[in-house]
């Protein structure tokens, strides 16, 4: 499933030209598709979320089914701050949402990551079901099944208002995504990133060189939860609304699909998979909602059977094959 990066200590960390591509595309899309900016913002936000999922699944090797919980926690934090406490500054909300999600990630991580395999999957699922039930029943805080409305957001830095066309939302999300991408990229190239690869490769060996494996997993888990929380806050701010579906098992499943579609453990898999999924969904799901889910299901089964590297993996093997063909 995962591609294997073979060296960290001998790797060059300079930004390759191809790595600029997503940002060029994102900026170009801003000017080329002014009518689709709210979809665009949604894509950027979900990329952020899927990126955080990749950190946990792809890089730390923790299979979780409860990742949406952190997204939801971030979303509700931002929403509740605005609706109940009158804190409407978006950056403040963002910081708060990231912090709260990170802390919850830390607490649950300490608890959950002592286990492994099926128990771990179960625990992540149970905890996210717990969060969902809290959001569902604590109606005076969250609005329950009707969702939390009455969320208003002040202009960013007191100046950039969230406009009807989603221009501000788009650029704001893009900026947050860019910063997080840079941090994640740095982290993955660091000794910390190398040790994550070590844990995934051989946990026994990692313990045998004195690594406190569990502590490190809790660290990634909290970082990832924090990022998911940021994404949740962005969603609240751009929609001015939070619903229960920001927390559900279905969302956890869907983001897993996006990640797998793009390619697990590839950093840019999150970008490609999410964009492809959400654009296709936008085009198809409204017209053929049932067929859409059927298609996604079939696609997923197909991926597990035939294309475990996702789109980027397919691209890799294609270029490898081309290269071999050209040499011959």
């Amino acid at each position, binding site marked *: 499933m995962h591609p294997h990066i*073979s060296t*960290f200590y*001998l*790797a060059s960390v300079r930004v390759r030209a191809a790595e600029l591509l997503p940002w060029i595309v994102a900026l170009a899309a801003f000017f080329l598709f002014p009518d689709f900016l709210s979809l665009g913002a949604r894509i950027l936000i979900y990329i952020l979320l899927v990126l955080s999922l990749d950190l946990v699944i792809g890089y730390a090797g923790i299979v979780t089914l409860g990742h949406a919980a952190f997204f939801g926690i971030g979303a509700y934090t931002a929403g509740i701050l605005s609706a109940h406490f009158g804190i409407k500054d978006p950056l403040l909300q963002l910081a708060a949402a990231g912090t709260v999600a990170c802390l919850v990630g830390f607490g649950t991580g300490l608890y959950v990551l002592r286990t492994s395999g099926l128990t771990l999957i179960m625990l992540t699922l149970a905890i996210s079901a717990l969060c969902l039930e809290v959001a569902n029943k604590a109606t005076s805080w969250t609005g329950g099944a009707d969702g939390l409305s009455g969320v208003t957001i002040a202009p960013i830095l007191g100046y950039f208002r969230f406009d009807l066309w989603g221009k501000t939302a788009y650029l704001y999300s893009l900026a947050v995504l860019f910063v997080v991408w840079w941090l994640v990229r740095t982290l993955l190239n*660091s*000794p910390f990133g190398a040790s994550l*690869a070590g844990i995934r490769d051989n946990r026994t060996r990692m313990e*045998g060189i004195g*690594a406190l494996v569990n502590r490190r997993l809790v660290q990634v888990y909290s970082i990832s939860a924090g990022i998911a929380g940021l994404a949740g806050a962005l969603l609240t701010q751009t929609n001015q609304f939070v619903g229960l579906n920001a927390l559900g098992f279905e969302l956890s499943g869907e983001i897993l699909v996006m990640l797998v579609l793009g390619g697990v453990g590839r950093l840019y898999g999150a970008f490609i998979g999410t964009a492809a999924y959400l654009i296709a969904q936008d085009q198809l799901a409204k017209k053929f909602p049932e067929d859409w889910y059927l298609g996604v299901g079939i696609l997923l089964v197909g991926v597990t059977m035939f294309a475990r590297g996702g789109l980027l993996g397919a691209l890799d093997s294609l270029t490898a094959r081309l290269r071999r063909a050209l040499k011959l």
Partner: protein
Amino acid sequence: MTPALEVKGLCRSFGALIVADHIDFQLERGARHALIGPNGAGKSTFVNLLAGRLRPDAGRILLDGQDITRLSAAHRVKRGIGRTFQTNTLFRHLAVLDNVALAIAERMGVSGQLFRAASAHQEVIEEARALLTMLNLMALEKTVVRDLPYGQQRLVEIAIALGLRPRVLILDEPAAGVPSHESYLIFDAISQMPADIAILFIEHDMDLVFRFARRITVLASGAILMEGTPKEVESDRKVREIYLGESRG
């Protein structure tokens, strides 16, 4: 002087099978100590108990006089116990240099660093290269471990342990599975290690044992049968009967 490692009354069983039976054992500072015994005697189990991979049912383990019985494997490494595994336990998908660098970074305490690239940590890389040079692996630094022949993988196993700069080094059949002409290379590397490291090694080849060990412990059915200098062990009737007699036909 307190011994580097001391074991008192160590017991462990798997179900009804007793694999460590009240073992008392001492490893002196700077020791070159061999642990021998027939297959299934409990040698690897003993190593796993020392290294913290297994919990003893009873008994105590002291490192430099301090009780480490309850410490996890990782914490024992931090206290200075390094070990190799009988079957290669390596980062198979990583380059040779990274295998060693991970251990060194862990020892130096830089492996938790998030914001500087691994490749910018020159101190780690230089030390790793020095080790690889010593073990004749320098030309292979970029090779992925999985692609190495078995004998060289054994060397990487040793390089990782050395990268930890242990005070006590435990080698579980370091030359296992290596063709005999190559096993000397491995033992040459071991014999060049700093004199103050206490080394305990398991080995089946008696020529190697008699050549490199200054002390030998014989384990049979989880209990210590005898301990002494190579001369004493070689001349012991019991050992000849149940162990040397067997292996030398």
